[in-house]
Structure formats: C-alpha cells, structure tokens
C-alpha cells in the first residue's frame, strides 16, 4: 500500500511558503485550463486561427502607414514593417496576458469556490494560452524576414533568454493584477487604459535610440523596454542587446515576478471567501 500523505489545516500567518512541489503536482491542470481557453476561443469564432494572424498584420499596416510613412518615425534603418512586427510579437503576448490574467480569477470563480488547487495555476494558464498566438505570430515574422532577406546571425542564440524575460515580465505583472483584482475590482477597469499607456512607454513604434543617451538607462525601468529591444537585437541586429538598459529591465522583471508570486501565494487563501457567493 502506498504511503498516505498527511495534510494539516490551520490558519496560515504572514507569507505562505511557496510550496513549489505542490505547484509541480498541479502542472497538468494549468495545461488543461489553457487548452480549454484555446479550444473555446477558436470554437466560438468563425474564422478562428485567422484572427491571430490578422490582428498583428492589421496593426503592423496601420503603424507603418501613420508612424513610418506619414510621421517619419525612425526605425534604426530597418524596413518599418519588420521593425514594428518584431516588437508586436512580444508586445502582443504581454498585453494579452495582463488583460486576460486580470479577470481570470473572476472568470473561474466557480472553480475557486468549489475545488482546491493552487490558485496561481489560473493566471499561469492564461499565459500558456497566449503562447499559442505567440508562436503563430513568430512564424509570420520569420516569413517576413525571409521575404526581406534578413538573416539574424548568431545573435539569435540569445533569443530564448529574451523570450524567458518576456514570460517573466508578463507573469509578474499578471500575478499582481489578478490578485489585486479579487479585492479591488477597479483594477480590471484600469487595465485597458494601463495597456495603452504601457504600449506608448515601450519602444514598439519607435526605437529607444530616440531618447537622449543619458536618460536611456531609466527607460529600462519598464521591463518591456528590455524585452522589445532585445527581440529586435536578436532577430534584426539593431537596437540594444546586452546593455545596461536591458540589464535594468531584466532586474525589474525578475523582481516583479518574485514579488508577484509571493504576493499572490500569500493572498490566495482568501480568494475563495472574497469570490464566494455565500460561504455560510
């Protein structure tokens, strides 16, 4: 007979332990929730996957016309289309993750009030679902690079590191917003606005070289600056790669992630009560 595990139930105080073993045990659930989201999304839309391709393409066209052609925003000497798309690739994942993870706990409140599992699985599953889109847009970008005859060179080996940085930043922000939204529902109304603001604070439609040299390091306080610049540097060979600015972004991203996980894990025990219809 298999050993019987013993669970102790008592009120926890202060910061809960992260209990990574438990998270590992529930990894399949994260995958299933993401799978559900993807499946439902493509089932309810008529053209399904085409949306994933159309959206960044349309944004790329609009930005190229207004910023690239009409406003003559510099693009580090790259074709503006490619310049923008290489940034939209990580940005799209980031923006989708923060808007969807914010409401994720509310959307799944039936689950949270009726079944036990580490609640952090819920926002994590939204990022897994967003990764599918990410891969599709990446293929689109590679195809465009082929058309323009741009080969990334050996720098592309750094790409996984920047993808990791992207995931860490997105999840860090996602954990904070989703946990806060359970207590303060204002958060979900702020997120669309936050999303737009953040978009213009990130060098998506313009290069960071537009900023004066001495201020550029502070620009790295936005974790997405480092991610977007890094993506361009790896794939297109322009922009800042391993610079102090990017390093600062990485530090900010990791601390957002770390603090986000700790905050989330210490609040999650109250989620069922905060979301429950009637606990009594």
């Amino acid at each position, binding site marked *: 007979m298999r050993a019987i595990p013993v669970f102790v139930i008592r009120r926890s105080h202060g910061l809960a332990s992260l209990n990574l073993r438990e998270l590992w045990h529930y990894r399949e659930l994260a995958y299933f929730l993401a799978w*559900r989201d993807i499946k439902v999304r493509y089932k309810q839309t008529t053209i399904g996957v085409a949306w994933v391709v159309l959206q960044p393409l349309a944004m790329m066209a609009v930005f190229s016309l207004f910023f690239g052609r009409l406003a003559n925003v510099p693009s580090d000497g790259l074709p503006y289309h490619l310049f923008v798309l290489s940034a939209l690739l990580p940005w799209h994942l980031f923006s989708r993750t923060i808007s969807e993870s914010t409401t994720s706990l509310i959307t799944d409140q039936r689950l949270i009030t009726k079944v036990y599992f580490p609640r952090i699985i819920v926002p994590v599953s939204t990022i897994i679902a967003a990764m599918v889109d990410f891969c599709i847009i990446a293929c689109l970008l590679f195809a465009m690079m082929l058309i323009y005859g741009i080969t990334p060179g050996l720098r592309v080996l750094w790409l996984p590191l920047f993808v990791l940085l992207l995931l860490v930043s997105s999840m860090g922000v996602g954990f904070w917003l989703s946990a806060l939204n359970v207590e303060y529902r204002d*958060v979900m109304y702020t997120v669309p606005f936050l999303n737009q603001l953040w978009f213009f604070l990130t060098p998506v439609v313009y290069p960071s070289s537009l900023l004066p040299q001495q201020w550029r390091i502070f620009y790295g306080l936005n974790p997405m600056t480092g991610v977007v610049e890094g993506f361009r540097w790896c794939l297109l060979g322009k922009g800042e790669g391993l610079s102090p600015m990017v390093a600062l972004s990485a530090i900010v991203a990791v601390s957002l992630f770390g603090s986000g996980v700790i905050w989330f894990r210490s609040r999650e025990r109250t989620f069922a009560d905060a979301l429950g219809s009637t606990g009594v």
Partner: protein
Amino acid sequence: MGDVAIKIEGISKQYRIGELQKYKALRDTLADAMYSPFKLFHSIFGSSNTEDKGGNGTIWALKDVSFEIKHGEVVGIIGRNGAGKSTLLKILSRITEPTCGYAEIHGRVGSLLEVGTGFHPELTGRDNIYLNGAILGLRRAEVVQKFDEIVAFSGTEQFLDTPVKFYSSGMYMRLAFAVAAHLETEIVLVDEVLAVGDMAFQKKCLSRMGQVSKDGRTVLFVSHNISAILSLCNKVIYMADGGIRAIGAPQSIISSYLADVLANCGEDLERLRVQGYGKDVWFSEIKMVSNSREHLLFGQELVFELRVFSRRQVKHLSIGCTVFNDVGHPVGTLFTSETFSVEQGKQYYLRLLISNVSLAPGSYHAGFSIGYGGLNGMRHDLDIVIGSPAFRVLTLSEGEGAMPDWNRSWGNIVFKDAQLTVV
C-alpha cells in the same frame, strides 16, 4: 494503515457580513489613505481575514468544532440550512482557511461540492471528461485509463462529441457525476449533490458510493436525504448554529434531529427549504387543516393549505407531496394530476386534500414540492420544503372508537380494504 482519517480540533470560521457580496473599491482604500495613511499600510500589508474584535458585523459560520473520523467510516452530516455543514466541507477540502483551530487529514481528499465544476458548455462531453478530471485532481493518464468506464457509467456514449450545452440537465448531471465517481482518493467529501438527477441514477450513485466505502475509503457527506444517510452511513454528525449538536449512531441522531426540526416547524419554511430551490416560485406557508393542526384520527382525510408566491409566470405546475415517518423514511408520495398556472408577482392559496389515507398511527412529517412533470418523465422542481407540517395519526379511529396500539414493526400503512374468501 493509520486509524484516524480526519481529526479536527476547535475549528472556527468567521465571516464578515456582506464580505461575500461587496468587494472593496480601490477608490475607497485610497480615500481612506488620505485620512489615515497608516491604516492603508495595515490594510494592505497586514494579515487578511483579521478577527473582528467587536463582533459587530461578523458571524461565526463555524464555532469550535471538534471530532475524529476513522478510516473506512461513512459519515453523514445533517442539519438545517446555515448550520455550517458546507463551510465545514470547504475547510476540509482546503478551499477556505479556518479562522482558528486545527485539522489533520490523513490521505488525499477528493471533494465533490458541486457536480460538474468547471464543465464548459461549449466543449464536448469527451473534452469535459478530461477537463473535469484534471480539475478534480485526476492525472491525464488516469482519465485515459478509466475513460470507457466513466462513459459507460454515465450512459452518454452517443453524445460524447456533442457540446454539453445541448445536453439535458439529467444527462449533464450523469456525465458530471460519472467523472467524480471515479476519483480514487482515500477520503471523499460530498455536498448535497444527490438531490438532483432522476431516481434511477440517484440509486446508481448511492450504490457506487456504498462501493467506495467498502474499499476502505472514508466518506463524509452532507445530505437532506435522510433515507440515503440511514442506508449508507455508520455515523452521523448533527450540526446546528455552527457547532456540533450531536454525533453518533444514525438512528438515534436522526430521530433527535427530526424531533428538533418538527418542534419548530411552521415558524420558518426558509430553514426547511432544500438548498438552491425557491428562487422563482416558493411556498410561503404550509399548514395542516385536517381536524386540528397537529393530529388527525386514524382514517381521517389529510388536508393541507399551501400559500405559494411567484416571481414569474409559470404554467402546468403541479404539487408533489411526500409523507415521511419518524426516522425520515418516505412512506408515500403523490403528484397532483390537476395543474395550475401562476402569474408574476402574485400569491396563491392552494388546498390539497388526500382522502382514504391508510397511515398507521404514529408521527409523520410532510414534504412539498412545486414544479412540473411527474411520475412519468422527469420532474423539474422549483421549490422543495421538507419537514413541515408535522402531525400525528392517533390511535382513535373516526366513529369506531379506539383501535389497539399499532406495532411499529408492522410498518406505516394499514391495508384497509382486504377481502378473504374461502375457495
């Protein structure tokens, strides 16, 4: 194998009234901060669910609950609505934390607080089996291995690739329960889920649960279905007002529970209402007007007066009435063949007359349902109230004087019109 499966010591749970409906607005917290910056710091970084010292605006859903359950025991939890049964199960399944107290659970816990948690209406039956399995803690490999068994149990083979939004409510329940029934945890917690579904499937579920306990698993289940508890459990916990009123052998605990329920019957139908019912159409008063309000003579007809209130228009309604004996076993049921309609926002008085009653002398209580459908086909109830009114059938028979004491072992029905011929 260790002896103790669940050990609870002094578990309490406090809720702030209104906490469950209202959420804090960031605006309010910020406004508070203007006046008292330290309070903000405390409210954000201080420990959450802080005990309210004053006791104002808070309620204790559970108060100082302690008990022990051994491996292989099947324990039923009974009590009125709001007695703390569901809160207890939520704490044991780790969905919510106790405010104070301590519990130890030896074994993996599978909890079934709702049937079909996480089912997505757009997904097919097949997809939902996998999804629900993962949510209940089954590994993918386990679901694959048991897939055929689950499908066979649910009896929905031909609809596997249909989105569950097209399922009838009965099919939906069957599929959902089938997944849950295949959990293989050492401890199973079940909350009032058998109240739904058709009779045949209820029986199947009950026998499946019986099987579960024969495997040496521990089952803790909340139910209003007294006969299910009598036939399945070897121990019963009677909860009232957030605490344990009594714990022990099913027969004695159930009779004391029923005695309490019947002692206060009439005063508050809300507490006798089966949870989840009475949302649109409900009974606001039920009384017996036979001979007196409490008893009737043997052979006298039963007359009930029901007051029904409706929030929306419903047609083809009928009344279901079940009479239970003193240990909670149903003795008989009827569905009225006459139907009626209700309009939105109106109140109706109904009178139900049951003649030729063959109830033997003893104590009984009635349960009423209002809904559509009946004996043949599925019945859909809008309200169910069990326990009121309670009445006694006296040993006095109308016009014929006293009849001898009725021996309980003879049952609850007196067959009156018998004919014996020598042939």
